[in-house]
Structures are given as C-alpha cells and as structure tokens.
C-alpha cells in the first residue's frame, strides 16, 4: 500500500507537467466521447438481440413512435428497454462505488463488498427466503436494501468507535471481518434450510427481474450519486494521496469520507437490491479506468461510470445469448470478458515507473 501511494504521488506529480496535461485532457475527453458512443451502440444492440431478434429500425420506432398494437414494440417497452437501462445503471453504480472506495481506503483490493453491502443484503434475503417465503420480489428488494444498510452501519460504527478514530486501513479490515461474518451465517442458514441453490443464483447476480420501477429508482440514485461523487472528486484525489497530505492541504477529511461512504452505500445498495451482487465490476473497472485515465478522480469517476455501464450491458446481452433460452450468470460473463483485458493492463502497471 505504501508503494501504491508512491506510485499515485508520482503520477499525480506527472500531471503537473503542462505538456502532459494538455495531452491528457485530449486523450481523456476523447475516451469519454468514444465510451458514450460505444454505450449507446451496445444499448441498441442489447435491445435488439434476444429470444426474438428485432431489427434496430424497429427498436428506434418502439422507443420514439410507440405503437401498443405491435408485439415487438411491446417486448421492447416492457422487457428489453428496462432491462438494458437497468444493466447500464447498475454497471455505472458499482464501478463508481468501487472507484470511490479504492480511492479513500487507498487499497487496490477494496471493492463495494468490503462495505458489507452485498453480504448484508444476502443475509437479509436468506432470512426473508426462510422465514417469509411468501414475500414478493419488491419486498425482497426492500429487505436486502435494509440488510445492506445495517451491515454498512455496523462496519462504520466499529471503525468510528475504535481507538484513534476512522482510518482507511481499519475500515477495510472491519469491512472484511463483518462481511465474512455475515456471509458465513448466510451460508450456514442457506445450507441448513436447503435454500443454498436459490441463494447461489442470487449471488451470481442477474438483471432478469429489472422492471421500470427498479429503473426509475436506480436512475434517481445514480444521477444524484454520480453528480455528488464528481463534485467530491477533487477531495477524493487528495485523500488518495494519504490522510496526512489531505489534512496538510487543509481538507476536511471527515466530511469527504462521510459523504463518500453515503454515496457508496446508496449506489451499491440500490444496485444490489435490484440485480444481486454482481462481482468484478466494482473491483476491476476502477483499475482499468485508472490504467487509462491516470489518477485524477475528476476523470476516474465519470470514466468508470461509462466503462462499468458498457461492460454490464455487453455482458448481459452475452448472458442471454450464449445458452439461450437459459440465462448464464451475468457476474461470470463480466469476469470472462473483463479478466483478459484487466490482466493485460495490470501487466503494464509498474513498468511505467
């Protein structure tokens, strides 16, 4: 971690170089533009492919000249469109959460799961499955959101009550401990009451249950979260250089950290309660983004949102297609698409020094 800082510091100093700065601005803005185009392209593709293939021109008409009498328009409006938009929003939410957490804990192994969100949600869900088997989808989502909140509150409480106050290292460790605790209890309950297979489908994540209601909640949370995160970006960049640096520069570290955690909880909580804990995106997309745009969070946050959205939309289309009509767990597909790319970029890491 100490070495990680050294790299971050040296890269940060790099960007001070004026020449470099101009080049970076051009490169990063063009990356954002390309990403937006790619995202729109993939969204169109994702809507048109599936059990019934629908032409792109029909997709266009279904969105802008909706005709309830045409079946293809119905499929698009009721099933494909919410699902695809949901995928984009969930991908963006998870990637931004991961980027923020890695920045403030200064640990490359940090991901939204260390705040206990997914494991808290899973715990609430298994209780729901075992004791209230009649609960509807929406009630299960609410339960998992509450579980996520409780787990995060416990983790934050522990590190706040600890001697010496909240420190990133302590938070990461408390997060891992509480997450493991919740996950173990969840597994024990699931194995004992024979709901392990249901749980494993939930753990694998999936977007098949996304509806317009979910999309509307997600889009509000995402817009608010990502806008505030972008406003906090400068503070997060400074925090990622170290607590002392941050305090030395006169930053209110407590405020930045608290705001950042609230955003992460909202974004991940909403994503997990709609789509389950889709792994990999929150851990790896921030790294991929950092390899490309550098260490400034004003770039990292919007870029990870776009890359996360692209990866999840693409993975969701693949998940529907490879083994149609059955769905393959989307979390596995994201990893299969993303891992080779990630390993390639990770090999470049360190050689730039």
């Amino acid at each position, binding site marked *: 971690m100490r070495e990680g800082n050294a790299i971050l510091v040296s890269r940060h100093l790099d960007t001070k170089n004026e020449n470099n700065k101009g080049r970076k601005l051009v490169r990063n803005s063009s990356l954002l533009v390309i990403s937006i185009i790619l995202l729109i392209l993939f969204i169109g593709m994702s809507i048109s492919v599936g059990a019934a293939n629908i032409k792109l021109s029909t997709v266009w008409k279904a969105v802008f000249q909706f005709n309830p009498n045409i079946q293809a328009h119905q499929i698009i409006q009721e099933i494909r469109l919410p699902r695809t938009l949901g995928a984009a929003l969930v991908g963006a939410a998870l990637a931004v959460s991961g980027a923020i957490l890695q920045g403030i804990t200064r640990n490359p192994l940090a991901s939204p799961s260390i705040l206990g969100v997914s494991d808290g949600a899973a715990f609430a869900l298994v209780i729901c499955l075992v004791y209230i088997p009649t609960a509807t989808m929406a009630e299960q989502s609410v339960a998992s959101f509450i579980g996520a909140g409780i787990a995060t509150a416990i983790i934050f409480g522990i590190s706040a009550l600890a001697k010496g106050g909240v420190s990133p290292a302590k938070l990461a460790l408390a997060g891992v401990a509480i997450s493991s605790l919740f996950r173990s209890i969840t597994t024990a309950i699931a194995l004992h009451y024979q709901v392990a297979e249901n749980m494993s489908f939930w753990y694998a994540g999936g977007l098949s249950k996304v509806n317009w209601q979910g999309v509307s909640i997600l889009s509000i949370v995402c817009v608010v979260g990502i806008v505030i995160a972008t406003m906090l970006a400068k503070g997060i960049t400074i925090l990622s250089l170290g607590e002392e640096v941050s305090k030395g520069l006169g930053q209110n570290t407590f405020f930045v950290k608290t705001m950042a955690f609230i955003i992460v909880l909202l974004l991940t909580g909403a994503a997990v309660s709609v789509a389950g804990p889709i792994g990999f995106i929150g851990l790896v997309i921030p790294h991929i983004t950092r390899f490309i745009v550098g260490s400034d969070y004003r770039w990292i946050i919007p870029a990870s949102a776009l890359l996360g959205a692209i990866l999840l939309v693409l993975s969701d289309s693949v998940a529907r297609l490879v083994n149609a009509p059955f769905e393959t767990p989307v979390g596995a597909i994201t990893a299969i698409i993303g891992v080779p790319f990630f*390993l390639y970029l990770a090999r470049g890491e360190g050689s730039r020094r």
Partner: protein
Amino acid sequence: MKINTKQRKLVKILSIMVLLVILLLLISLNLGVVKISPMNVFQTLIGNGTPKDQFVLLELRLPRMVLAILIGAGLAVSGSILQAISKNDLAEPGIIGINAGAGFAVVLFIFTFQGTMTGLSALGIWLLPIFAFLGALTAAALIYILAWKKGINPIRLVLVGIGVNSGFGAAITIMQIKMNPQDFMKAAVWLSGDIWGTNWNFVIAILPWFILLIPYAIWKSHTLNILSLGDQLAIGLGTSVERERLKVLLVAVAIAGFCVAAGGGISFLGLVAPHIARKIMGPKHQLILPVAAIIGSFILLLSDAIGQNLLSPTQISVGIVVAIISAPYFIYLLMKTN
C-alpha cells in the same frame, strides 16, 4: 534487554497456546456422535481401550484433529507471508486466487464425474486432494507468470491475483449452475471449507511438508521483515529481492496448496491469524510467524469441534465456523488497538 522481554513474551504466549490446543484436543476427543468419557479416552491413548473406542478415537477423530492443527498453522503462515510480500493488509491465499484455482479443479472433477460418484468413492477421496493441489499450483504459476515483467512488483502481483481469482470464480459459477442438486451441494460444502481426509495416510502424506516448510518460513523471517519495508529499502540493505521473494512466495503457495487440498476453501483464517499475531507481538516476523501458526491451529481446531458437534448430527462446514468465531475477536482487537 528489549529483545529479551519480547522473547520471554513469545515463550509465554506459545506455551499458553500449546496448552490450550492440547486441552481442546482432549475435550474434542470426548465429543462426537459416539460420546467417550475422558477416562476411556485416557485409557485408549495409553493403549488399554476397547477396540471400538480405539477405532473411533485413533482412526477417526485423532487424524482429523491433527489435520485441523496442520491446516490452521499452514493457512496462518501462508497468510503472513503473503501480507508481508504484497504489503497489503487484505492479502490471504483466498483473495489472490490460490483457493479459487483449487476450487476450480475440484468443481471440474465433480462435474466431470457427475453422478458416477455416489457419496464419495474410495477413488474420489484420493483423487480430489490431488486435483485441488494441482489447481492451487496452476493458479499460483499463472499469477507468477502473468505478474512477471523483468521481476515481480508487489502491486502487480496483487492486481494479477485479483484477476486470476475473478476468472476462476466465474468458471466455478458457470460449472456449478450446470450441476445436479447433489453435486451442487457437494461442491458448495467443499468451497466453504471442509476437512475430509480423515485418515492417517492423509496426515502422513502432508505432515513432512509442513515439518519442512513452516520452520523454513520462520527461518526466513528476517527476509520477510526486510521485504515488508519495500523494495527500495530491501535492495539498499543488500537483499537480492527477486530471488528471496520467489523463495518465500513459493513456500506460501505450497503450504496454501496443501491446506486447500486437505481442507477446502477455508477463507478468512489466513487473513485474521496473522493480524491477531501482529497485534499481540508487533511487526517482527520472527515473533509473528510462530504465534500466528499456533493461533491458526487453535481457531481451526475449535471451529471444527463446534462445526461437528453444535448441530450434530448435521455438520456445519468448518470454514463457516471459523469466520463466525474469529470475526468478533478480530473486531474487538481492531477497536482496542490504535
């Protein structure tokens, strides 16, 4: 003077922990589906037991406990080494893909012989650990090769580890979904950690490696101290960083491989035992490694006893119990120390 007090503390803690382990061993020998009184246990141990007691104690329970002690110590040492060389608090064999590699091999095995192995056939008991070990080694080799670029950089090692872990994890998920329910349960139990090689042959197969590798790791403590300071400092102090790091990394991976082969994907122990030891003993690895090892043994032995007996005859996977009993203590330590 200071060294002396530290050493005295080490001796004190080690002897307390060894006593606790022995006590726990004796208590858990009594427990199980067949209850055997302490007196009979004693009689059996000195060779005067009934054939039935002898069978249950010496052939079923004792080898399992010896394995628990070995695996616990092994995971703790492996975790300590990985935390030192990656300089990352969250490092453990599970998070950088070694467990996932082994898990992948095991799930592949169960998947290939789907349905043909009702229960666990004699062949399966022997082949599974070998598969697991090979899987762990493959994962480690993959991580090392992919992270190698004119040397190993600790951050790159961790990043590549995450990637390999995710890749294997995805493959496991996909295969698991295609399994029938019985095989699925078998895989799920294995993945959450389960000591199953409960016979002496198994102990004999892995014991020599542990006797060799764990003391070697402790002997290399000085290297670990230097490596955990960072590469520049280590080179400045005249250490040939790459070679030394490869040596200790190989030790960590080999130990983890044996542990996974015998105990399945027990997570969290390799993370928590080194931290507890560090909180008690300070930053020196000469002191951390032995204490972490004995703490690991104690936690795993205790977890196994609880998992076997609490809901008897239903068994709880030992990996689950490990997290449930060690997380609270770990959190307590986290809150208490600065």
